[in-house]
């Protein structure tokens, strides 16, 4: 599996941190903070306590030392939340900056008469181009905007978007015709029909996405915000009414303390980290060289029930390889391997090379220069290759071709030969016959080799509750054999794009979410229909627009990683929410006794943590509440580790760590802070 180079900046880059500190202050603007109700409420009450503090200072009443510290920590709470978001955004911004270089003012050569061969053009600024314009791009030029090659072939450096410096070939017609604005043509000249308006190109979208400029709350984020706002409202009710409830027993509750209680109870931890988690999820995807066109797609990836995987490149290496020599009666296996090796010297196809490799590896044979030998190279028409030496004619190739060469009728072939051929075909392999003149030597077993460890990978997916479906153009017999060997749950043999689309629709009707990847124009409908459609960067423009993610590495295995990243994002969100809510229990036990102790000294029975004084208890709870945001930023950015162990085990683990941990940790944390606060005589 290609665990791809994580090219982004380190988790905490110095420059990013410095920028983030500045941004955290800028984000205090209440108009921006409105988007985050929990932190917005915190800011409003922080401002309120600050006013109370100023009044106490001016009038010389109350305890300004205490109020001032509470106010300061409330502001810190807001700043820490802003900082978390700014750090997450900063990592994307660094990436966007490098992308932007590729978009600097480009001159384009617009053809005056695109319909003829006439090559006259005018130089215009790329920003003035319109959809449908045809431009000429020659070696050394930047491609001005996204488009489709309508004539020519070129080698193109796409490093600007993929980070991969090896050039790719793009040509008119077929599935390799799309070109991306900002990439460089290295050789030849092509005519490109512009397909996007300036400002809407792939690179523009990428910049907007990694910067988070267009970031909108995803459906689940929105739902979680509703819950967090609701909880804020509930605790607002609890705290505001406390004023009246306490009034019954004549307890004068200080407003500063009530505010402290409110802020510690409302879910500031998850409220402060929520958007950072979302941005970090997108960022993780970008580090895997996948661009999602919306956060919604990342969430959907976590929900995927069925993966449609192309056989070639994902499940198998894509080339048939020799795995076995089956010698006929009276022939030694070494003799057969030797003949196979010689006959394959003229075959440069991957199959031919794999025969040579197998012979060398298993029989310790050497490829040697044979003087006077005449190579018969492999040709698609004859489907046979070999070598003539000393009057011997050694051949290997498709069974019927070799039989014809040896002059043997198919039904006259030896029984053990026919049995070997049958067995190989039945198990999904391809038999190749080897003959020395008119004498049949044996059969070579070519088969689609399954990638190592893919079976375990699928088992892991099954444990996650995800079905894998192999899509292949092979016939059903071959497909079934490979499917059972690779351990996929289902397969679509002789698959056409229509079959894929039909399969996806059928699964969706059953209430399942489907992910697939594809690159061709004929994949576009299926990509659009799938809940998560990953288009290959090498694919056509149509495919890239139909999918909701683009894989810059064009690796079909990526789908599995994408699913994991989606799950990780959701898990991080859920775990921190659980943690945040569980924290409330300890905070109550810190603040409530402190609140009522003046009226009911016996309330100290509830002071389970034996905190120093009422003031230090309240201050410690507020400090803990602020610091926990900072402490959890690395977790929010890195994400909670996902393990494919099934939902029940995951729930048990996360509930223990974040639920039980969230219940216990603040008791310890507040106690420690209280010791420090008391030792420093802060309260």
């Amino acid at each position, binding site marked *: 599996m290609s665990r791809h180079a994580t090219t982004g900046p380190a988790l905490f880059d110095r420059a990013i941190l410095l920028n983030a500190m500045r941004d955290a202050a800028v984000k205090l603007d209440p108009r921006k903070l409105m988007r985050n109700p929990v932190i917005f409420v915190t800011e409003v009450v922080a401002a309120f306590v600050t006013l109370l503090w100023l009044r106490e200072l001016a009038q010389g009443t109350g305890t300004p030392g205490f109020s001032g510290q509470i106010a300061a920590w409330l502001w810190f709470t807001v700043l820490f939340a802003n900082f978390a978001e700014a750090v997450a955004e900063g990592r994307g911004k660094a990436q966007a900056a490098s992308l932007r270089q590729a978009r600097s003012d480009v001159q384009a050569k617009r053809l005056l008469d695109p319909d003829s061969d006439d090559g006259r053009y005018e130089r215009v600024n790329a920003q003035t181009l319109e959809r449908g314009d045809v431009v000429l791009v020659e070696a050394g030029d930047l491609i001005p905007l996204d488009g489709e090659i309508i004539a020519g072939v070129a080698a193109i450096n796409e490093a600007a978007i993929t980070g991969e410096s090896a050039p790719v070939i793009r040509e008119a017609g077929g599935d390799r015709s799309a070109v991306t604005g900002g990439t460089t043509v290295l050789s030849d000249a092509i005519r490109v029909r512009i397909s996007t308006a300036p400002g809407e190109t792939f690179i523009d979208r990428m910049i907007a996405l990694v910067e988070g400029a267009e970031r909108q709350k995803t459906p689940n984020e929105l739902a979680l915000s509703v819950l967090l706002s609701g*909880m804020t409202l509930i605790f607002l*009710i*609890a705290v505001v009414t406390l004023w009246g409830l306490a009034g019954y027993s004549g307890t004068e509750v200080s407003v500063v303390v009530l505010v402290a209680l409110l802020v510690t109870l409302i879910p500031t931890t998850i409220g402060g980290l929520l958007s950072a988690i979302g941005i970090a999820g997108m960022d993780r995807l970008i580090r895997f060289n996948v661009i999602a066109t919306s956060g919604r797609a990342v969430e959907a990836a976590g929900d995927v029930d069925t993966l449609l995987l192309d056989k070639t490149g994902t499940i198998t290496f894509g080339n048939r390889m020799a795995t076995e020599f089956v010698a006929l009666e009276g022939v030694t296996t070494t003799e057969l391997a030797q003949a196979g090796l010689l006959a394959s010297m003229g075959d440069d196809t991957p199959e031919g090379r794999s025969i040579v490799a197998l012979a060398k590896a298993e029989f310790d044979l050497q490829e040697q220069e044979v003087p006077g030998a005449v190579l018969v190279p492999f040709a698609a028409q004859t489907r046979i290759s070999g070598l003539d030496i000393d009057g011997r004619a050694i051949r290997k190739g498709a069974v019927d071709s070799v039989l014809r060469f040896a002059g043997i009728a198919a039904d006259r072939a030896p029984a053990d030969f026919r049995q070997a051929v049958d067995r190989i075909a039945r198990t999904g392999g391809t038999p190749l016959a080897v003959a020395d003149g008119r004498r049949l030597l044996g059969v070579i077993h070519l088969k689609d080799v399954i990638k190592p460890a893919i079976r375990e990978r699928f088992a892991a997916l099954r444990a996650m509750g995800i079905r894998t479906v192999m899509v292949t153009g092979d016939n059903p017999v071959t497909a079934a054999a490979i499917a059972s060997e690779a351990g996929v749950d289902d397969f679509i043999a002789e698959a056409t794009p229509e079959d894929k689309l039909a399969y996806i629709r059928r699964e969706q009707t059953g209430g399942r979410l489907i992910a697939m990847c594809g690159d061709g124009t004929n994949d576009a409908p299926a990509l659009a229909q799938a809940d998560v459609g990953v288009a290959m960067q090498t694919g056509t423009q149509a495919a890239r627009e139909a999918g909701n993610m683009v894989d810059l590495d064009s690796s079909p295995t990526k789908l599995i990683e994408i699913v994991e990243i989606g799950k990780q994002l*959701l898990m991080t969100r859920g775990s921190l929410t659980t943690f945040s809510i569980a924290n409330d229990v300890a905070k109550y036990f810190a603040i*409530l006794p402190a609140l*009522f102790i003046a009226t009911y000294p016996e309330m100290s*029975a509830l002071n389970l943590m034996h905190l120093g004084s009422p003031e230090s208890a309240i201050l410690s709870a507020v400090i803990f509440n602020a610091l926990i945001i900072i402490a959890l930023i690395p977790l929010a950015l890195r994400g909670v580790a996902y393990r494919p162990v099934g939902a029940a085990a995951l*729930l048990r683990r996360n509930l223990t760590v974040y*639920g039980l941990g969230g219940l216990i940790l603040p008791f310890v944390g507040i106690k420690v802070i209280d010791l420090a606060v008391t030792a420093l005589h802060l309260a």
Partner: protein
Amino acid sequence: MSFVGWLQIAATLGLVLAAVRPLGRFMAKLFLGQRTFLHPVLSPVERGFYRAAGIDPEQEQTWFGYAMAMLIFSAMGFLSLYAILRLQGFLPLNPGALPGVAPDLAFNTAISFLTNTNWQSYSGETTMSHFSQMAGLTVHNFLSAATGIALAMAVTRAFARSGVATLGNFWVDMTRAALYVLLPLSVVVALALVAFGVPQTLSNAVDATTLEGARQTIALGPVASQEAIKQLGTNGGGFFNANSAHPFENPSALSNILAIWAMLVVSAALPITFGRMVGSERQGWALLSAMAILLILGAALVYWAEARGNPLITALGVDTGLGNMEGKEVRFGQAMSALFVAVTTGLSCGAVNTMHDSLTPLGGLVPMVLIQLGEVLPGGTGSGLYGMVVFCVLAVFVAGLMVGRTPEFLGKKIEAREIRMAVLAVLILPLVILGFTAVAAVLPAALSSLNNAGPHGFSELLYAYSSAAGNNGSAFAGLNANTPWFNTTLGIAMVLGRFAYVLPVMAMAGSLAAKPRGQASSGSLPTTTFLFVGLLVGVILILGGLQFFPALALGPIVEEVLMHTSATF
């Protein structure tokens, strides 16, 4: 605490458990529209009702249509009950020649019975005529419980169905709940009660001469029939002021067991109905387990606190070997009194066989908490189930994310709209309970109703509003609630607790019904495991209970602490 006491509790709950599966399955069949063994007798009656009312039973309603039908039905019920109470003096079956009920009390009582609360600011035997009891209150005991069941079935269908707009027909569900479930059960229970010695007569009070030669008036009436539905429908409004502590409502230990059984049986069976209808009876058992854990915990805590007795009384040299017996009936004992306390508050029933005001502070804390948790343990008939579903939705939403999928419950995705509605619903109880208590706590007009000072008086206030908003109806007593302030505000609290809660729940149900039902895989959050039950309990305690902690701290908690320092109020 004694072994025999625990045995009594276990045996009573065992009897409920035995009835839960058959009753749950019966109701599932009934509300899925299948034939039951009662159909040969009752279906002609049922069809007669529809013909008379011009209802097409095949016509299904959207969530909005369903909710509107329920609201209209409730409004009509309110008007007719209010009229009966006000005009009582002119109506028949009034052997005591009782006058019409005062406006604020009639308002409070009408709402109280309509919302399945049965808060009683009056003494039944001296305020209500037989006609008011039978044609007014008892009718609503049936209808409010049937309405609750109907709403719960609508919410159940939201999960059972896939991609539809309708949730069933309110009139049909309500009629079936009353006719096939509550009525037959009531007949059986009422006959059993008569056998245990509960009076059932239309004659007036009997005058007796006591041994001292004094004259005593002994109130009588159609007690058994009202008692049966009072328990079965989790209504709780007693024929007598002393409610189930009165020897004519609850004469013996056996009738007490029957009373507890009848309170629990329908609410405990409904989760099984839910499970059957959504195609996973296990799910029903999981919900019932969560309810049972908290309920049994509550009962155990009351039993422990009460059996421990009051240290202040022990200090006076009184033998408290039996525990704190103040306000309890000797014929029930500590264990069955404790179980009754927990069940009647976990259930939103509100019948009492023990004076809650006389419980020790900790013992009094439990019923208050059980009500504030949202009346879902297992809650009122129907209302407990849909309340529990709301908590499931919230639990699944928070925890579901932790398995790396967007949350879903029974294959239905939980998204912003569902969460908005669930939050609106759970917002109601703290808003109403804490809001009204906070105002009453500083309002001289309200405070003058209190019999006790200090935290105990505060507990009485908090309990009253919790009971009203939770549609429980039991009282902490010690509070003269028959004043315009309390009659009005408690009435409003009851209305909000019932209707402001259920409307968002119905909206949530409508949106869930319209969603396709996904299939569960090993990647989905398991919602039938013990782990989920534990999670659900945690969510109920934290999301449902935590906001009441400050208020409780000022009432029973501080009182408990103070009791150990010899302070009394």
